[in-house]
């Protein structure tokens, strides 16, 4: 069984980097790992060797590692078209790709990106080539959007929904006609005819699509699929994270833990006394100001470290005791595999979780 680690979190939290580091950590522990990244920053992409857009896994050259690491980057462009072409006959695909409503839906429907990521995940787990797939998820405003996306896509493809629109007879037909006529009144008849055609075309391909989306959905709920939540120590959106966790648990999915980025380490003194600082540079112009700034630094760093740990403690408490790993900032940012390697020292399976006691 291929195990899956899904890294969720809002944009700007260092999620892509963390996913890559987590993958490297498992590879170092001897597993055959593949990481599916989404829009990695240039330097990370270069470090992983996926600088050029690639929908197939590439081997990341590692020295002295027990396992292997592959990386790929999700191709955002034309992902919907790809799926349509896969499930529809050539003629049907052409007509669908030409439909005005489809064009609007495929380029703007939120959730399609997430859906495509999960589609790709399904492909990678089916290959049997890897022990573990690490999935970086598309950046969303709220982490829960990740779950809603596939459901939303499925809702649109829902067979009962399609037949409701296409079935014009009986009482149900009357209600549908009423609703369609209201939409025609509000939005114009052309929109209604575009939408009807869209759903008629979709109806023809919905069986294959549905079967696939159900398998994808089952994969998200599988016991071997674990979820990680990545957050920024400076701004962990607790309500958002806990909301996500609740949805996760309602769905019976497994939560692995929090990975908190950019955590300030607790400063460990001893530090020089104020008098010593004042004397040390007494000759320097403007030293008074400097020594005051220096004197204030340990307390400021300590306050920041405490604030970060308090936030994590509250998060862990609200989550009912789920583990959290604290990952410090890497000086200068992660620019290379060495930078990633430095991160892995603070991540599972190597590092122990934060003890909140």
């Amino acid at each position, binding site marked *: 069984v291929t195990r899956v680690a899904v890294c969720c979190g*809002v*944009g*700007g*939290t260092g999620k892509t980097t963390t996913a890559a580091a987590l993958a490297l950590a498992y590879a170092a522990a001897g597993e055959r790992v593949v990481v599916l990244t989404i829009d990695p*920053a240039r330097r990370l992409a270069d470090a992983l060797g996926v600088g050029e857009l690639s929908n197939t896994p590439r081997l990341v050259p590692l020295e002295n590692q027990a396992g292997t690491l592959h990386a790929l980057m999700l191709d955002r462009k034309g992902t919907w078209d790809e799926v349509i072409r896969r499930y529809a006959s050539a003629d049907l695909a052409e007509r669908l790709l030409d439909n*005005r409503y489809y064009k*609007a*839906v495929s*380029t*703007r*429907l*939120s959730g399609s990106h997430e859906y495509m990521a999960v589609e790709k995940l399904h492909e990678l787990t089916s290959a049997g080539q890897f022990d573990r797939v690490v999935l970086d998820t598309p*950046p*969303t*405003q*709220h982490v829960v*959007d990740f779950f809603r996306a596939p459901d*939303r896509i499925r*809702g*649109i493809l*829902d067979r009962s*929904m399609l037949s*409701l*629109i296409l079935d014009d007879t009986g009482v149900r037909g009357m*209600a*549908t006609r*009423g*609703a369609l006529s*209201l*939409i025609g*009144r*509000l*939005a*114009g008849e052309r*929109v209604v005819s575009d*939408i009807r055609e869209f759903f008629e075309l979709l109806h023809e391909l919905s069986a294959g699509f549905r079967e696939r989306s159900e398998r994808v959905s089952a994969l998200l709920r599988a016991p071997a699929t674990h979820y990680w939540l990545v957050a*920024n120590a400076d*701004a962990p*959106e607790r*309500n958002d994270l806990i909301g996500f966790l609740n949805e996760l648990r309602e769905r019976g999915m497994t939560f692995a833990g929090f990975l908190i980025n950019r955590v300030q380490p607790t*400063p460990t003194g001893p*530090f*020089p006394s104020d008098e*010593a600082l004042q004397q*040390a*540079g007494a000759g*320097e*112009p*403007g030293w008074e*100001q*400097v020594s005051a*700034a*220096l004197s*204030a*630094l*340990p307390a*400021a*760093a300590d306050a920041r470290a405490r604030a970060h740990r308090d936030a994590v403690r509250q998060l862990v408490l609200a989550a009912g005791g789920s583990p959290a790993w604290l990952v410090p*900032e890497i*000086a200068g940012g992660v620019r290379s595999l060495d930078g990633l390697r430095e991160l892995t020292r603070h991540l599972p399976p190597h590092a122990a979780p934060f003890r909140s006691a």
Partner: protein
Amino acid sequence: MRPFDHRLVMVLGKGGVGRTTVTAGLARAAARLGRRTCAADLGGTDALAVRLGLVGRSYQFRRVIGGLDVWSATPAECFDDFLARKIHLPGLARKVVHNRFVDTFIDAVPGLNDMMMLGRVENLLVEPGSDEPQYDFMVIDAPATGHGLTLLQAARTMTDMTKVGPFHDLSRAVDIFLSDPHRTAVVLVTLPEELPVSETLELAADLGQEGFRVHTVIANLVEREPIPDPPGVAKVSEVLSSVTDGAALAGLVADVSARAARHASALAELEGGLRRLGIAAPVAVGRAPSIERLGATLVELL
């Protein structure tokens, strides 16, 4: 013109950059300047209300302080309002409309969700009903779904899809309002880090191509270099090397300085990118101890 001199400010930015906090700060700032202000959340959450010191979310206009209300909307609430006010559909008929089919339809039509909410905002500002509050200024915490560009484009998408009818009229009115640089200002919020900066520049460029000018970019949580120059960090480290227990302190100086330097270089990158797009230099704010203070700072800086 300052952002507050417009009728509407759209605050865009990804999750985690402090967009909601900045929205709340801008609202406090506008109220401070005597504008009758409404801080609006279009994501259906309590985040903005909580930042402003209230509990929970509500579609009612709720008073925060004198001259400042907070309001939270969902597409369904705005759609219902639209059917009642513009189509004059009675309550029972509106209930029928809210069946699964119509709800799914609304969810599936691109831009309709966003357009319903922006239409409500435009109505409030341009022709408020006799039962509605009158605002000089609304500041919007952009909704959770999608991208800022999609939100601003929603009205145009809808105008293109529908050639006639009430949706068409409403979306045209919204598009005209949003594209008018005298009435609407777009404010982007970002962090002084590499990835958020490049995303912000990308968004600003995309917005520009669609005819939306970015008025102001606010870089949030910017840390400043703690050591003045002269003498500078190198000199200070040298001095510290001769002080008892100086090494640990030198380590802290290096940490904070590295962060401040990273922020400064990200800000420089942002400023350069914005200049190439013909957009003013970003406004940098540090961590604000309170929304009130942030409001005061924004009045000063903007």
